[in-house]
């Protein structure tokens, strides 16, 4: 099977000595990979490096075989992402924010913008300025912007942050449909462990900046009562 994302010895240290150290991971095409870890484990740092928002001290990330450090344009050509939070331009409408993404890709017609806003449930707010959007609506817009160019890979950092239960289920179903029908590869970080269990077919744990186990959800659930139990056992948490 060919690899969608290859992370090699990724290291980034902050002045407070936190960060990530020698993280390596391989995500196969079509995987829905769940990236778990406590707050401050380095998930966002790793994901920022993966999309070029941050430079690593050492290591590299290959997306579709292209290095994020030396072949940025090719690497990001078929990637959609949400990193840390969704920050649309507040003086623009949802449509205008989508248009900013559309221009950066070839052949994204206006009909596709409507389609993505419909899929994420905010089409009726298309012409409203995002200044007045709630956190959940901004997340939905962020997902719409990420899926707009029909990317082969989606890198999503806490994509369901601030969403209501209905929204979380809708987005989960959308991700599963995209993976099944379009073969989209997902790299999702979330603190919602139950959601990861329901969405992802593979799970990796990052703890104190280091990568712990990587397992398929199926094998985890064969050996543990739940993903939460597996996670707690991996990070050495004793109740």
């Amino acid at each position: 099977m060919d690899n969608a994302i290859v992370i090699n010895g990724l290291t980034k240290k902050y002045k407070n000595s936190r960060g990530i150290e020698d993280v390596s991971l391989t995500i196969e095409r079509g995987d829905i990979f769940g990236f778990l870890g406590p707050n401050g484990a380095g998930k966002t740092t790793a994901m920022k490096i993966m999309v070029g928002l941050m430079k690593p001290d050492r290591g590299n990330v290959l997306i579709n075989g292209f290095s994020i450090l030396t072949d940025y344009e090719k690497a990001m050509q078929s990637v959609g992402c949400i990193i840390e939070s969704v920050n649309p331009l507040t003086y623009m409408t949802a449509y205008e924010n989508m248009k900013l993404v559309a221009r950066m890709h070839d052949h994204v017609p206006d009909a596709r913008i409507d389609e993505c806003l419909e899929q994420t449930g905010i089409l009726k707010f298309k012409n409203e300025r995002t200044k007045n959007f709630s956190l959940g609506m901004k997340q939905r817009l962020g997902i719409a912007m990420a899926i707009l160019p029909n990317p082969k890979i989606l890198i999503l950092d806490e994509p369901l942050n601030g969403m209501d239960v209905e929204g979380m289920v809708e987005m989960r179903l959308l991700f599963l449909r995209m993976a099944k029908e379009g073969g989209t590869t997902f790299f999702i970080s979330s603190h919602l462990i139950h959601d990861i269990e329901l969405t992802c077919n593979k799970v990796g744990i990052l703890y104190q900046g280091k990568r712990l186990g990587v397992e398929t959800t199926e094998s985890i659930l064969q050996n543990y009562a739940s993903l939460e139990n597996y996670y707690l056992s991996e990070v050495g948490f004793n109740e």
Partner: protein
Amino acid sequence: MNKLKAVYLNEVYKISKKKKITVAAVLSVVAVAVAAVAVYLVNNFSGIRVTGSSELSILVLQVMSYTLIPLFVTFVAVDMFGGEFSDVTMKITLTAPATRLKIYLGKILAIASFIAANLLAIMVLSLIASFFVGIGMPNVVRIFFAYVLAFFPLLIYAMTVVLISNLIRGTTGAFMVSILVFLLFIGAGILFPQIKSFLFTASFDWYRLVLGSFINVGKLLRVFMILAGYAVMLFGCGFYLFEKRDL
């Protein structure tokens, strides 16, 4: 090239959507109207003639290129870099499939377009106003070249602001430092005339070189080369900081 064009169009689109641009347009119209009315009143009621029809456009350029245009440029350039880093909206631009060089260049080109559009609007407005206050036809060709030349030092100032807003975190600090640097350069030109010709602010009125009966091509070339030197240094330093910056 397509990516650079896309970045450029996005940046122009962003500028056009900001309220500050409407304010800039209104202030420009008001400034030209005030200048025209002032010149009309002085010419017709004071017994002296301060300017003819051609000079009104130059008078407006002289005032605007030292005041309102640098102010608008500072707002736009600080917003485009420091502002977008501060409110994290830069993430949308940086995660698009375009290299940082193309993003940086696209933003600079958008600022350059803003300056050009601003100058063009003022020129057209002042030419229209000239018909009402002056005597005879304005020398449109000379006025046009004067406005073209005025563009270059303003672009250098914009690149200075870009460098500052990549150096200093926060929009208020970048804005204040940019204005301070502008004033310091002008002040240094007055206090130390021996170094004046090396300061880009000294070339804010270099368009005067094409207004006289004799055009000093050698001097025009020398000033242009100094401005080109500034452009290369400022672009290089600004891009270095932009490229290194983590979000």
